[in-house]
């Protein structure tokens, strides 16, 4: 599904080129569960952002479903990630002004899905995450774990092939974190959704079938 060949990204400060990512080669198949680990500043989030097409790169190539991402036009590229990728964030990034229901519904609005269909999809999702009773609450009225559940529900609503999660359990206590990891595992196994997560936590990383270790912008090793 994803192929990275000699991918590099850098910033130039004071005439000196500093590599954020250097010569990354990685192939990820459909249905995989990958964890990316590494210390702060090793380029984990940068890599995730590039995979999510939210950020560009300077060298190399990125193939997503056999499409050359860097040659795609902005419009086509955003279409590609809208259709196939869901994002989950460490800080949940729910929209404060919207209720649980509306937050989950938002991605569908941008895909111009009909009202009746939309209602059915959101209702299914609320059901599945057992949040029907909370659908009219605002994010500030939920616990962190519940917020992250809403975040995941929102990522899943468009039925993506791939979920990119940036430290999804970083703001949660260990019990809530475990629940989220269980959920990811279940999604990966039962729904066949590919998952790539960035994490600091060895225990959480172990949920992945493969663990990519980054150090100073390079792949240090790949476990599994």
């Amino acid at each position, binding site marked *: 599904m994803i192929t990275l060949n000699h991918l590099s990204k850098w910033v130039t400060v004071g005439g000196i080129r500093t590599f954020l990512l250097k010569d990354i080669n990685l192939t990820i198949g459909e249905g995989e569960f990958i964890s990316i680990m590494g210390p702060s500043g090793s380029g984990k989030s940068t890599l995730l952002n590039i995979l999510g097409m*939210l950020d560009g790169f300077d060298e190399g190539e990125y193939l997503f479903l056999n499409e050359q991402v860097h040659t795609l036009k902005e419009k086509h590229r955003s279409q590609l990630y809208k259709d196939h990728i869901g994002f989950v964030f460490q800080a949940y*990034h729910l*929209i404060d002004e919207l209720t649980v229901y509306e937050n989950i519904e*938002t*991605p569908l609005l*941008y895909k111009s899905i009909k009202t009746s269909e939309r209602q059915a999809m959101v209702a299914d999702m609320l059901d599945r995450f057992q949040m029907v009773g909370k659908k009219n609450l605002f994010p500030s009225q939920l616990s962190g774990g519940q917020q992250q559940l809403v975040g995941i529900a929102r990522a899943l609503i468009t039925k993506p092939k791939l979920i990119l999660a940036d430290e999804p359990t970083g703001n949660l206590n260990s019990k809530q974190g475990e629940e989220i990891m269980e959920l990811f595992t279940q999604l990966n196994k039962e729904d066949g959704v590919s998952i790539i997560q960035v994490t600091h936590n060895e225990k959480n990383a172990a949920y992945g079938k493969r663990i990519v270790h980054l150090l100073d912008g390079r792949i240090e090793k790949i476990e599994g």
Partner: protein
Amino acid sequence: MFKNYFTVALRNLKRNTTFSVINIAGLAFGLAVFLLIMEFVAGEWSANRFQKNYDTLYRLATTDKNNNTGYYIAPGFAPAITTKIPGVQAVVRVADGIGDGVLTATGANGNSSTQKNFRENNVLYVEGNFLEVFSFPLADGSTSLATPQTMAISENMAMKLFGTVQAAGRTVIMSNQFGNTPYTVKGVFKNMPQTSDIQAQVLLSIHTLENAANRDDNNWADPSTTESGFTNIYVQLGSNANAAAVAGGITNTMHRINSNTAEQNAYLQPFSNLHLGPDFSYPYQTYGSLKLVVLLLSVAVLILIIAWVNYINLSTVQSFTRAKETGVRKVLGASRWQLSFQYLSETAIITIVAALMAIVLVQLLQPVFNGFAGKELSLAMLNQGWFWLAGVGFIIVGAILAGGYVSFVLSGYSPITAIRGKIANSVKGIVLRKGLVVFQFSISIIFIIATLILYQQLEYMKTSNLGINLQHLLVIKGPTVSSENQAALNMAFKDKLAQTPFISKFSASNNVPGVGYNFSAAGITKLNPQKGDDKKNYFMFISDEHFFDTYAINFSQGHSFTANEAATGWSNAGKVIINEKAAAQLGFAHNENIVGKKILWGKEYEIAGVVKDYHHLSMHQPIEPVIYLPSVSFVYFTIQTDGSNMQAKISSLESMYKTYFPGNPFEYFFADDTYNAQFSAEQQLGNLCIAAAVLAICIACMGLLGLAAFTAKQRIKEIGIRKVLGASVFSITQLLSKDFLQLVGIAAVIAFPLAWWAMYTWLQDFAYRISISWWVFAIAGATALCIALLTVSFQAIKAALANPVNSLRSE
């Protein structure tokens, strides 16, 4: 989708109450002012358009070789214009300002016990076809005033006189300078709309004056005269007639009938140019002022632009708090277009709420504004022509531009930057926003300077030495309803005034300073005139011997008239007094002793004295050459008192007046009030400038507040670090304020030359004017700076006091 946008917009407005209130209030005030001024402009634009003959009506004007224009034309030319010139469909003579006097209604069956007296100044002598050519619909009776001693009155007047509009057939006695003449009411017309430049409560048939008995020796008012110009002549042309050709025909006719008009050319001023000229350099007199309309329109548009600018500033500042939302929405798949649309719909909601508030504000401010404008305006004025369309169009375009810019900026951030809340660090749009603040403050400073200079000029005109004294002078209007022994009564009243203890000085004159002269005349020369001297114009003023003393007008040579000279009148006495301007225009040398010298005006007159030049009218006009003619005239009595306890004095004067002049209403004014009323236009403009300045500053400060909040947020980390390193609150406040003061400085540099130019141009309208002094600019700059400092330091101190732990902890 729309529902979602709408919900989010409303929730956002609710969450940021302060921001929403400031933003909406700024916009609402801007819109309200825009609407109020548009009402005024619409009123000016619509003037006279209700006339069904609007496109074919003209006012006859004359121009002489010096490009002086005249509008009072001798009525005797009218018959020839009607009959001899092809293309002319109708001619209407209208004499204003000569008919004012007192109307007395007799009871339904001539019962005089029910009679009522009203003084009315709005009296016109008109051609018989007046109500047929002009569109003033009738409420009762018929239109024709072709018969002498017929009249038409307004509904208002009918109600006053008869308590009903059904007044046709009733009789009214009109007492004015032409004696007491009974008139039959032919028609009652609906009150003339305020959009009409022709205004009257009473229309008298001009044919009445054809009978010498109805002129009371005022033979200049004979409607067949081609010598004295006292009527406006309106001409209605056929639809195919060429106005220039007809004007040429009128010129020839006038030259043929009276060779004195040889240097005059006729011009037909179309009704479409009667109220507002087609351009600033239009040489003919208009009832409205195109300059004022354009000026007001610019103020309106500027204020609205300032309000939009403010909206842009505040909304983009607001965007940091929404950066995350923007980023998340982008990640969730929102296209830039979709996001823009969302922000645009928020602008739309804010605009609509602001517009509704503006309409409420307009209702509240309407009475005050009408006071300023001196008109009865309302939102209904906008209900015509393209005004709604233009107004609404302008508002929509503004909303789209302002909202469009905001949404363009917001939706343009990359999702990663936005989601991490780092928009504040982005420099995008900061230059523009600073530019907008500079723009707002430039406008504000210009308004402040304009206000200061305007009031300086006003103060200068009010307080500088006019050469006369107007203080404690009470002016009583003389009687117009005359009795048989009127002359004797007048003299008796004068004697009574002389005996009244609280009156220190008094005089009787035919006009008073600040109101006008009596008439103007040419053909006055020294005994040995130069060629062309007889074409020079002099203003004639009729007064008694006490006039100069009462108004404290100084003589540079000679003395006032004697009582005997005044009593016999100028023609018999053969004496005149002239001012220094007149002496110079007559050709006497400066300081030449001319008392006792003779001048020619039909016959010889001896100069009894020369008065020092004084400002008879306001400083708009230069001092004119004036010749004073002795007479016992009783149009105005001017009384000097010590100014204390005026109420008691006035009521005692009233009872005196009523005894001597029964049937005449007692009317009075203070000389200085009437004189100052000449500045009412400047006073209005001054009020408007103050209002505009205050509003512009308020709105600009809102923008500044927004920008200051933005900067404080943008530099929050820097401030935190500086505090940890030991910076004081004062030094941080200083750091944050400095940049803004620079902006105000730049605004001042831009505003000064513009304001100087605008006010210099404005001052050229005054014959006597102040020079613009540098400290006006200093004050304006300092004011703007202080206000800006207050606004900014509020935010800066808040930022400086914040605990650095909070700002440094993030990330």
